[in-house]
């Protein structure tokens, strides 16, 4: 069964002569548990596509169905809660909350739901991410790699069906990059999560189950890991 179905997605910024078509009739679907990399030049429309899938931005036309729910038909309040419970976000700039410590940052989406975080699960995440010794630390006391691990923890805490990562390794060195990617892959397998990740790094893209390329707003499916176009 497909977890994500994107059909005829278009996004145009501006109007008239200055109109820019960022996405042109994009359609694809992703089954549950797949690890997908999205590649493309700067300004090709990758981030726009990811923002649409995460319902952070609204399309000019087209639909996005996550687990059968049409996200753009939801009212804002319902959409926020849907996003909080079903989609995890990882940003290039980490975007952690500077006033919250590691543990609080990880449990933030649960706290927003006014629920008590599951202690065992929090421990498990901290262990998987090797952050046990850092739980009381503030983001500014962590290295870039550690901060991105916290962001991954925050994306995992609600056990979302879908994780969207916008260049999660963009600000990291090669060692931290490969650690983050292997963590994401482990999570994908362990918690049966679908991951869509934007990356500029071809070797990272090559390790994904499937690669999508966006070029000038048009999407093409490059297929699986063995694809020679990537190597």
């Amino acid at each position, binding site marked *: 069964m497909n977890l994500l179905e994107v059909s005829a997605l278009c996004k145009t910024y501006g109007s008239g002569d200055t109109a820019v078509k960022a996405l042109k009739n994009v359609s694809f679907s992703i089954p549950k548990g797949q690890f997908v990399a999205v590649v493309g030049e700067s300004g090709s429309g990758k981030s726009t596509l990811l923002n649409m899938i995460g319902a952070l*931005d609204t399309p000019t036309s087209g639909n996005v169905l996550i687990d059968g729910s049409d996200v753009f038909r939801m009212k804002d*309040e319902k959409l926020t809660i849907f996003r*909080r419970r079903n989609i995890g976000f990882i940003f290039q700039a980490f975007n952690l909350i500077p006033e919250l410590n590691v543990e609080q940052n990880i449990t*933030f989406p649960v706290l*927003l739901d006014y629920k008590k975080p599951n202690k065992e699960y929090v421990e498990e995440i901290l262990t998987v991410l090797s952050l046990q010794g850092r739980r009381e630390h*503030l983001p*500014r006391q962590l290295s870039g790699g550690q901060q991105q691990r916290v962001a991954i923890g925050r994306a995992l805490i609600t056990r979302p069906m879908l994780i969207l990562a916008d260049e999660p390794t963009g600000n990291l060195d090669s060692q931290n990059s490969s650690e983050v990617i292997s963590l994401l892959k482990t999570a994908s397998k362990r918690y049966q999560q679908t991951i869509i990740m934007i990356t500029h790094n071809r070797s990272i893209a090559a390790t994904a189950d499937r690669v999508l390329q966006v070029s000038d707003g048009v999407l093409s499916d490059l297929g699986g890991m063995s694809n020679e176009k990537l190597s």
Partner: protein
Amino acid sequence: MKSYLSLIPISSKVHRRQNRMTLLCIIFAVFLVTAVFSMAEMGVRMEQTRLLDKHGSLTLQDLSDSAMGQTLYLIAMVLFVLILVAGVLMISSSINSNVAQRTKFFGMMRCIGMSKQQIIRFVRLEALNWCKTAVPIGIVLGIVITWCLCAVLRFIVGDEFSNIPIFGISITGIISGIVVGIVTVLIAAKSPAKRAAKVSPVTAVSGNSESTKNVHHAVNVRLFKIETALGVHHAVSAKKNLILMTGSFALSIILFLSFSVLIDFVGYLMPQSSSTSDINISSSDGSISIDSTLLDTINDMEGVKRVFGRRSYFDVSAELDRDNILSSTIDIISYDEFDLDCLTKDDMLKKGSDISKVYGNSNYVLATWDKDSPLKIGDKIWVDNESLEIAGLLKYDPFSSDGLTNGKITLITSGDTFVRLTGITDYSLIMIQTTKNATNEDVTAISDILDKNCIFNDRRDQRTASTYIAFVFCVYGFLAIITLVTVLNIVNSISMSVSARIKQYGAMRAVGMDEHQITKMIAAEAFTYALSGCIIGCASGLLLSKLLYDILIATHFSYAIWSLPVTSLMIILLFVFAAAVAAVYAPSKRLRNMAITGTINEL
């Protein structure tokens, strides 16, 4: 671009929204100073016209030599300094936030070769660039408001303000407005400019890290829900801002409570009684000899608005019916219906009084009172074998100069009760209120019909109503200024705080914070400022109010007792609440309407 400074107008166009608050602050300061000095000049011109009218062709002394001119300019100078300080504080905090938000920009400028001195010049000129629009707007606003105020004084307050010019333009006002605009901006831009110059070029590469530098400890999420805890933390973590905001709220509250005492003080100095008369007619030997028909005659004359009289009967023997019967002599004074009505209208009666029983022919009376008086409501007094019950007590003794009874019992009865008790129908005092347009001829006509036994006392010159109104007007006007400064300050501060964290809020929205939670978080921040200001302001304001009351009022008017200013406190609470709500409204609306992707990517 001719020089790097050509960037200033371009950048101000791009950052129009962020600059709006700073612009408003400058406009506000310029407007206030222009209005204050223009009003002072109008006052001086009014005095000039009055002197001209009075002394005819006499050469007028130099304006600044006249006592009134000096007082008005002195007040204007004091207000000038106050506004300058408030303006510098306001504008400085908004330029500071403006600079803080553009750390990366200044870092980049340093990176590509701008020197520290050039950055300082850049920030200063950027601030002066705002004056270009803000100063003219402030001056025009100041002039228009002066016109409105003069019209209010001339047509609504009237009397001694009837000579005030309406469409006057004050050069002093305009010049001081320009000076205050430029001086405040230059002083205010000083510290932010230095701060901007200190930005290291490396910030251009490492990003805007300013907002995270001040965080030293994590939020306590055990006490509140996460969004409330974050909001409170935002307010408490920036110590300097917290002190500034709390101080600004507290200062307004303290000033409000202190000025209320000042209004009370003037109220005691110039009691505004509804029954204040313009003309008094009394019997020359103090005996009761004015025929009651005179009232009707005067009532029908030109220029008379209202006539009422008082009868009096002094040193009557009476017995106070208490546990042990006290014998003494008392005074009885009769009040006409209008006079009795005024007691209620002017709030002269103590709590528990029931004046309605006193009207008409009854056995109920009112009595004067002070804190040493033995009388209580419900006490009975025997006069001439008749039992009179005290239905109400006055707050003080209006018949003595110091407001104290000095042990004397004075009863106030209705006219009918007085006549029944004493058999006297003649008045001892007739009081006349004239109409607004009563002429001197009208007043002379009244004095002409009186016989030799009567003393005619024209008290129109002693009217203090318009001076009192003008004073109250000024005090409340000043309070309104202080209040506006506080509101602008909190609105500005919250707006800046939101702008500084906009990227963070975008991330919070992305990971699932909803609109209500965002609003609650901003509200928690605003209410933390408001609440701490309220607590400190009310506590110290009440102490100061009591102290001022004791020094100014209680030492001179011994019957005056300080009581908790409940109404003022309620107004303050309501106002602080409204200010906090106003401060939250715009930023939360802005965040709601902003696309999440826009807030995440904004730098």
